[in-house]
């Protein structure tokens, strides 16, 4: 009997050790100089993860009334309507490119599509379209009545730091989780998620000259870029869509074009809030210098960078996009970011005619391959989000289809 009691007692303790517990303060350190709070700007994987923790995606409560009609019922439907409007001025307009009309009736937003587009439902799960509140309030307190359910931690505290600071925080138990860092000693690396954060080099051919694409392709080694200049997990991306969405073959490097006739300096704009982009910009600078280009680097806050992109006021511009996990939607986003929303009708029509998901994906890949050489952007690499935790402090980490961790699902291990 005693043995049975002891066994039950031991199993209870063991059971207790893995059971999710409520309570505690989840402290998350993010490798970034500043953290954006606007969902349309907070599109690095780490920032998107934080946005998800403080907002609710509207892909819940959706009903297809027809292949081209979708209803979203939610007390936050009006806010979703506003987010659609705001998204028109962002690189994520392609997420909702297929929507022809919107009608708000009370808590129901009726969306009319131009063509059948089943991926739209998942597109609405994008953090850029999410609305508040989420599992945690902006002030960090857990929301008991969050639509997705209460978070395990009572409170979420986030901080922006660098890698040395992150390592120190982990060591001193000032953070249990670190997002976006290179491998830190003493930290446990969580399982990687999908690498859907693609970085592109945008360019204006009328300002850079016609040979810029060839100059870049002849000198840039994407594998070396991903390995040596960018935080892991990073993957070379020679194709329009990231490796998670389409196969990436190693492209043959073209020959170097002749140097530009007039060595006029070109300005390369990049995000001042992303250290990896600075490293990539510097690498592009020296490599294009070898091709006869003089590149001037200019760092801009993200809001200004987006504004310059929207106005096409740039010569070269380095920008990252957090692509949705669906190839068709990702394809629309990239087409629109490259300024080819004029292709939406024909591409959506072609896709709408295909019901089979595999056929749709094949069509997207085929069109991506065909259109890529003519677009005014050059894909460089794709990144996922590294998540490291202090061993034994947090458990329950899960990632969504976009590779983002669900902070609300994390629970803290009780202190011994």
């Amino acid at each position, binding site marked *: 009997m005693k043995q049975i009691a002891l066994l039950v007692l031991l199993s209870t303790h063991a059971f207790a050790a893995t059971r999710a517990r409520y309570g505690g303060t989840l402290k998350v350190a993010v490798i970034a100089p500043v953290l954006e709070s606007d969902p349309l700007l907070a599109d690095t994987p780490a920032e998107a993860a934080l946005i998800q923790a403080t907002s609710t995606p509207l892909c819940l409560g959706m009903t297809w009334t027809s292949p081209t009609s979708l209803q979203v019922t939610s007390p936050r439907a009006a806010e979703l309507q506003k987010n659609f409007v705001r998204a028109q001025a962002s690189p994520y307009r392609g997420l909702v490119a297929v929507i022809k009309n919107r009608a708000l009736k009370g808590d129901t937003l009726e969306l009319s599509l131009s063509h059948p587009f089943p991926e739209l439902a998942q597109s609405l799960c994008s953090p850029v379209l999410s609305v508040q509140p989420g599992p945690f309030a902006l002030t960090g307190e857990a929301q008991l009545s969050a639509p997705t359910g209460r978070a395990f931690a009572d409170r979420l505290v986030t901080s922006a730091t660098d890698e040395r600071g992150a390592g120190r925080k982990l060591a001193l138990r000032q953070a249990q989780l670190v997002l976006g860092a290179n491998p830190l000693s003493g930290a446990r690396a969580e399982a990687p998620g999908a690498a859907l954060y693609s970085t592109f080099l945008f360019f204006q051919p009328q300002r850079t000259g016609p040979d810029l694409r060839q100059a870049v392709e002849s000198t840039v080694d994407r594998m070396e870029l991903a390995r040596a200049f960018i935080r892991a997990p990073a993957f070379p991306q020679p194709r329009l869509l990231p490796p998670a969405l389409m196969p990436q073959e190693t492209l043959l490097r073209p020959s170097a074009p002749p140097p530009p006739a007039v060595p006029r300096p070109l300005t390369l704009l990049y995000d001042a809030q992303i250290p990896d982009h600075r490293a990539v910009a510097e690498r592009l*600078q020296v490599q294009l210098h070898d091709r006869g280009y003089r*590149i001037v680097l200019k760092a801009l806050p993200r809001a200004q960078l987006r504004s310059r992109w929207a106005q096409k006021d740039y010569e070269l511009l380095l920008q990252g996009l957090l692509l949705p996990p669906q190839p068709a939607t990702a394809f629309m986003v990239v087409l629109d970011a490259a300024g080819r929303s004029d292709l939406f009708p024909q591409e959506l029509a072609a896709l709408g005619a295909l019901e089979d998901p595999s056929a749709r994906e094949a069509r997207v890949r085929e069109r991506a391959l065909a259109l890529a050489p003519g677009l005014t952007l050059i894909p460089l690499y794709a990144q996922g989000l590294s998540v490291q935790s202090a061993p034994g402090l947090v458990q329950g980490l899960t990632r969504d289809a976009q590779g983002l961790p669900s902070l609300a699902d994390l629970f803290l291990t009780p202190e011994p």
Partner: protein
Amino acid sequence: MRLRTRLALFFAPLAIVPLALVVPSTVRDLRHTLLEELTARIQRTAVSAQATVQQTRTETERAITELASSDALAEVAQDVHQQRNPVGVKSAAEQLMKARGLNVLSLLDDAGTVISSGHVPARLGDQDPTLSKLIRERPAHAVPLWVEVASEEGVTQKPALVFAEPMEYGELRIWVVGGVLLDEAFANRLGALTSAKVQLEGANGLVAQAGDAQPPTVERVLQLSPDLRLRLEFSRAASIKAERGLVISFATVVGIGLVLAILSVLVLTPRLTRPIESLTAGVRRIGQGEMNFKVEEHGSGEVGELVTAFNRMTGELKRTTEQLVASERIAAWQEVARRLAHEIKNPLTPIRMSLETLIAAQKAQSPKFNALFQESAGAVIEEVDRLRRIVDEFSQFARMPKPRLETAELSELTSQALSLYGSLPEGVRLHTELAPSLGVKVDPDQLTQILVNLVKNAIEVLPKGGDIWVRTRRVQHHAVIEVEDSGPGIRPEHRARIFEPYFTTKEGGTGLGLAIAARICQEHGGGLDVDAGTEGTGALFRVRLPVARGLRSS
């Protein structure tokens, strides 16, 4: 030129000349000294700059050598060897570079591939041809090289002092190649040390510059490498300014000296010159007849003695002049009395003879008594008339009335006087040249008397006809009337006496006409003189009268 002015002109050069003699040589010496000092400073500065470059070279070599044997680098080498911590390796060069005060540092493998770079982090994995060449050649000392440097503005080539040292880790060899840029900061450092304008120049032009040198300048060039030189420019502005300042100072001293000389002349010399000026004025006034004038200014020394002697002399001159005038007056009256007696005595003799003849004839009851009585009575009456004329003219001469002056136009008066001669003797021609608007202040009657007398005399010397010219004109401050004749002229022995009373060359003349005319002219403040010319060419009498003020005279 006045004495005071001459003294000023004499003392002024005394103030200027010595300085003018000294200034050029002083300025020349100063210029030479300043140039020598500048040359020496340039030499010292060039040596100092060379020493700074050498010191930088030595420090670079030491820093790279120490780094190559450091534990920090050993850790990096371990990471490279074990192909781990790529992020740490990538940033290692930048951290090591900053820690050792370098601004160029690359870690290369034996093939010259960049393992890590602090000055161009983006060159990771690339071959650096310049640094590869350096590790192949492996010079013993730091050398000037053009290295690639990346910045926000682009990728450029900049000069640097670079040294290479290998580090062995097992079979791995890592080259530590680093140094300092020869950039603006280096130029600033040199500029602060040398106080010169520092320019680093490459084959394509200016690389870095610091400091300033106001032109004009002199320069010294140090060749650091075949395509890199250091130019040091030194300003000569200070020495030129010093030189200019000296010249200005001298000029100021000269100016002050000149002013002081003039002031001293103006202030001090009056003590000397005033008595002399008073003496000069005194001489002038005594010459004009003011015998009572005395010089009041009394100087000291010789000048004072001169003034005293002058005043004593003028007093004696006055007394002597008065005595002489008195004597002359007595002599003149004696002469007049003698002549008057002579003139009176002349007619008395024929009167006496006539009466004695009549008495004798009456005693003798001569039958010619009546004829003798008529003849003798006529002779007596004639001589009595002559006596009366003599007495009348003498009375007129002795009781010459004061002229009643009034302003008149001379030519008009002259014309009026000449009109009294309505008909001239046969053969005598009268010519007039009368200047208009010639105002004089005269007694018209007395002037008429003068002109009548002169023209009468001229007519009398032309018994067989001739020409008489009457002219009026202005000569300086006098109105002049000239009466000229074409007669025989005046004999030289008579010219001096022609204006004396009772001197005459005419038969029956009283000898008072010209004397009266001369006295009238004197009373008017003028004068009467004669220009006798040569014998036989006629005589010219000239009346001078003061010009009247207020009446416009041409």
